């Protein structure tokens, strides 16, 4: 070989199928990293706001005042624990306006609204996580497919020459292996991020459930006390 084999040459000289595989893996890697950054920022923001909210709620302030403050800020759109609290409190005040409201009915309704708010919240937290899981589990296979295809072609080329030598197949195998490398390059961060984010989502959901329980027990106490 007169010229050294640079990675650019390897990619440019690869067969169309291998190039397509490499291209799709690059796109997958790009997309998964966008998701990783986006999710990372989002989950961090959610955790921070939840902590702030919990501090506020258990600081002994009047909940009605907190609710009004919340409605005034952020144009009434909330996320995390705030949205669950907003949904529950809104339903509670609405039920309270009806004079003949049964405490049991109030409890049940409030709980139902909070549950539905939480499932919405969970859904929002888990967006893109399935994409990361897909990239993490399939891109090694896609890369492997590119490699197998490339090696297949390299050996097919070997069949037509009389003097079989390693130098004839080596570039083909080398370019084929680039596909596997790219597959792993896309998969590894995606898998790590998926595991990390799903664990974080689980923690957030647990804390939200705990908050719902506390909210309803406080509600229960106030309803049945008088």
């Amino acid at each position, binding site marked *: 070989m007169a010229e050294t*084999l640079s*990675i650019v040459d390897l990619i440019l000289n690869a067969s169309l199928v291998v190039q397509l595989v490499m291209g799709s893996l*690059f796109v997958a890697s*790009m997309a998964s*990293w966008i998701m990783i*950054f*986006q999710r990372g920022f989002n989950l961090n923001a959610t955790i921070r706001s939840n902590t702030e909210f919990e501090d506020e709620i258990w600081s002994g302030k009047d909940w009605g005042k907190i609710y009004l403050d919340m409605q005034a800020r952020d144009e009434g759109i909330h*996320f995390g624990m705030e949205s669950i609290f907003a949904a529950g409190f809104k339903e509670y005040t609405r039920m309270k306006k009806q004079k003949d409201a049964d405490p049991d009915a109030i409890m049940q309704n409030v709980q139902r609204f909070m549950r539905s708010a939480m499932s919405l919240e969970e859904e929002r937290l888990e967006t893109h996580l399935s994409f990361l899981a897909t990239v993490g589990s399939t891109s090694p296979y896609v890369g492997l497919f590119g490699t197998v295809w490339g090696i297949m072609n390299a050996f097919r080329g070997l069949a037509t020459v009389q003097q079989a030598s390693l130098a004839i197949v080596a570039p083909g195998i080398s370019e084929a292996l680039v596909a596997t490398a790219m597959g792993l390059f896309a998969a590894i961060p995606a898998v790590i991020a998926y595991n990390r984010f799903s664990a974080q989502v689980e923690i957030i959901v647990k804390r939200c459930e705990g908050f719902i329980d506390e909210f309803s027990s406080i509600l229960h106490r106030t309803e049945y006390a008088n």
Partner: protein
Amino acid sequence: MSGNTSYVLPFMLASLLHGVVVTALVVKWPDESFETITSDEFLFLDAMLVEKNPYREKERQRDNVNKKTIAKKALEAVIPDPVENKDEKDQAQIDAERLAMEEDLARELARSQQLERERLERRKNEQSLSLAILDEQEYRRAITDDEKAQAYVAQITREIIKNWSRPPSARNGMEAILKVFLAPTGEVVSVSVLASSGSESFDRSAALAVQKAERFLVPTDARQFERNFREFTVLFRPEDLRL
């Protein structure tokens, strides 16, 4: 919306990351260890005909004699026979002229010899240059390897010369560079013309000379074979032709 962080910053970060990875790969890829494996030094085998064709040699001698006689005749034509000329003054003038002419001839000869020397010098320099190209870190090893390789090179050169029959159109100063690929057993895999001499028949004769040899003696050491004999270039340059 504060709930869903926008995608602009993540996109920029992801692009930056991929850009860094790609440039790192592109820039850093051909590192030294990789290069030495694939590096190839141009190994010039000077395929000159060493033994002189006796027929041609004779012809050349005859040619030289002819040239000399022509020169003599020319001298004689200019210079009238001194015996016929009795004038002392004229005689001295003629003598001077003759001397000057002889000096001219001698100068001419010296100049051509000088040119020949320079040419040899240049060739030597070229060879030493190709040696100097050797990678520094492999230099020490390369010296002993080179000595071994030289013997094989000489053998291969002899093989090629033996099989080379040049076409009538071959002229001095023609140069064809051929690239030869060998199998580890020494068999010729393929021959291709790297730099044509301009004459197709000359190129063909050179390629044929390599192909006729079929098999060369190559070092059994695989590393040395890969370095020097897997593929090498041969310079075909007829030196002993009259034209």
